[in-house]
């Protein structure tokens, strides 16, 4: 197998971010909230503060590390929810057809018609800001691609011999779907999931940027960017580092997704993705 640069670089970037977030308490120099010292406000990057400090005098390096936790949790968990919903709806719709297929199609169209950020905004406005709300808002709004894909794949797999065979042996529908169909569509779904995770990280940043993320003062890259909006020219480091962190994560996930696609799915069926 040839060396796949995108897979390895992507994987390394993503792993770096995950390690940074997971081991933040050991890697960070200070507490991200309590160790604020207004006398040290807006110190440029240097030996003491690697990434400088923000307007509150907090160490940006430590905040960027801790700030990984929310986007990563939200990215991974919400994408899992999306995948489960999308696969369950899409596969069952493709497998059973009939009125259920119509209902699922209608729902998918509805989800596709409303810009998902507006949908997420509505959910965040209704629930109180917080991690659970973020998971719900982003976990319920991005399953339509997965759903369409699983449905299409199920339709094409359904006709093939081995599914017919399984059915004639008397296997139940759920069993057939899980053992015969799911493994066949797993590749594209993992790819979509990886790419979607990048999307969720961005969506979290956008929501936090609009003040609808988690409660301050716990850091999240999006809210760090938002807080620094007026200091872009006077203290650019406050926004550069969380911005870079977002960029690294999303780039890593995208490269990873492409790499996985090349391995898992050489004859891509991702017409829609």
């Amino acid at each position, binding site marked *: 197998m040839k060396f796949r640069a995108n897979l390895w670089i992507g994987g390394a970037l993503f792993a770096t971010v995950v390690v940074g977030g997971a081991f933040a308490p050991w890697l960070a120099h200070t507490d991200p*909230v*309590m*160790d*604020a010292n*207004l*006398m040290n*406000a807006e110190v440029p990057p240097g030996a003491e503060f690697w990434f400088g400090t923000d*307007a*509150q*005098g907090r160490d940006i390096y430590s905040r960027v590390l801790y700030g990984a936790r929310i986007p990563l949790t939200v990215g991974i968990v919400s994408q899992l929810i999306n995948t489960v919903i999308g696969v369950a709806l899409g596969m069952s719709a493709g497998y059973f057809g009939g009125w259920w297929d119509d209902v699922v199609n209608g729902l998918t169209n509805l989800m596709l018609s409303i810009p998902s950020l507006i949908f997420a905004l509505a959910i965040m406005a209704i629930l*109180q*800001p917080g991690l659970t709300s973020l998971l719900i808002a982003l976990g319920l709004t991005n399953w339509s691609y997965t759903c369409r894909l699983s449905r299409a794949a199920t339709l094409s797999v359904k006709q093939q011999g081995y599914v017919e065979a399984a059915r004639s042996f008397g296997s139940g529908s759920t069993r057939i779907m899980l053992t015969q169909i799911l493994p066949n569509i797993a590749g594209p779904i993992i790819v979509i999931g990886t790419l979607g995770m990048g999307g969720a990280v961005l969506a979290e940043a956008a929501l936090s940027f609009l*003040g609808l993320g988690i*409660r*301050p*003062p716990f850091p999240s890259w999006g809210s760090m960017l938002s*807080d620094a*909006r*007026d*200091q*872009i*020219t*006077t203290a650019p480091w406050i926004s550069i580092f969380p911005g870079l962190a977002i960029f690294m994560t999303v780039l890593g996930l995208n490269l990873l997704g492409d790499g996985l696609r090349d391995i898992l799915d050489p004859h891509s069926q991702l017409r829609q993705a």
Partner: protein
Amino acid sequence: MLKKLIFTTAVTLAAFTLHSQAQEPRRGGTIRFTAPYATSFVSNDSHVSNSVQDEIYGYALHRSLYKWDSVNNKPVLELAKSVSTSADGLVHTFKLRDDALFHNGRKMTADDIIWSYTRLMDASKNYPGAAFIRRIKGALDVQNGTAKEISGLKKIDDFTLEISLIEKGEPGFLFRTATTSIFPAKEAQDPNFFNKPIGLGPFKFVEHIPGSRMVFERWEKFYVAGKPYADKLVISPMGEAAARDVAFRNKEIDVSILGPTQYVAYQADANLKKGILEVAEVFTRNMGMNPTHKPFSDKRVRQAINHAIDSDLIISRLVRNKAYRATSWLPLSSPAYDKALKPYAFDPERAKKLLAEAGYPDGFEFEWTASPNESWGIPIVEATIPMLAKVGIKVKVKPVEGSALGGIIAKGDFQAYIWSNTSGPDPLTQMKCFHSKTPRSSCNYTTFSHPEVDKLIDEAGATDDLAKRNEILKKANAILYEEAPVWFFNYNKAVLAHQPWLRGLQPNATELALQYYEDLWVDETSPAAK
């Protein structure tokens, strides 16, 4: 060295001021103003909205009975030449201007004022100006539908109007804002009036591109001879501070209101520094505490909070000295400001002791409702969190949208909030917010109740002697300090940056972004001087 620097700056400043005073105002050119707050203009109808944004254009298009004299800090007659007041202080007789022309050339008479005020009381419309007009006798009957006309408004002749109020007070505080501006009685009923509004102001309406700009041109027959100076006026709503900053540095706009970050940046820039206008505005930034949250019902806890937060540090480092430390409620520019009061000292030890006395030796936790505002919102709360933690108080931030904050507070749906409230210009009106009879929804947000304060406010209201009244209010203000219903954070220092070619700006302490455009002029160095 430093002394020398200060001296040179002072001399330069003095020379600059002298220079600008000496120069004759120049006619012509375009004033490119900005409306610097969140939303764009609400409406073309100044009666409909009380947002500052709309008042900013209202000052160009319309006129009210009174206007605000920014230099002397008091309301003065505008559409009337003189006023006489009856012995009981309730009936005011106005001799109206006979030279005020609407933008279609028709002369304003007493009928227009009566019509405008009556319109404001229309029960089906709920205009915000009704809050002022209902102080006229009989106005409430119109709102309740039992009368068609306001009985307290009497036309003596075309240019004489008698207004009877329900209680004593300076009518100038009631009839000066754009929400009570005078509309042309007949023309305003035309269905097309909304799209082509006319008024008595120094500038005529040209166009409104909602969300982008409002354009005006000089009203040649404005009643002040020789004014306005500029040919044209463009006002752009620009709520985003960073965008305004670029446009200002790019010389596309003539004024900008500065936040703390930009205040520092502009002071550090040799060119921008020359065009900074600072005013101690009548806004008090504070954290209100709800006595229904048990710890806050104890005065010692509230005092402990005032001691535990290092307000001076926050003001100097985070607010960048774009504020004055608050002592009690009434601000620096208030006539009843108490110079003798010293602000709460930063003293965590004392705070701990007070908390222990109140029965909270290990502190307590509360939820703090805050909007994202950089000067009186979440950033300030974030700065206090470590300070309060040191005395054992845990803070949970509850973020809310800026536009929803007021409603939440008025409903009492909070444990603590941080807000910026007007605390002037009239000290009596503002102190009434702490009278136990004032309900929470009408500005007694912390449901403050103290018999001594009630007595003092009532006494002040009954006094006609202004100096004496202010002395009484000072006493009430001192009790507020002691009782600490809020954390007294700061009084706003409003900062307006203007291009060197824009002259005639007024230091308006009620709201610096509100300027009378007829006094503004642009010199020939403006890119829009033609």
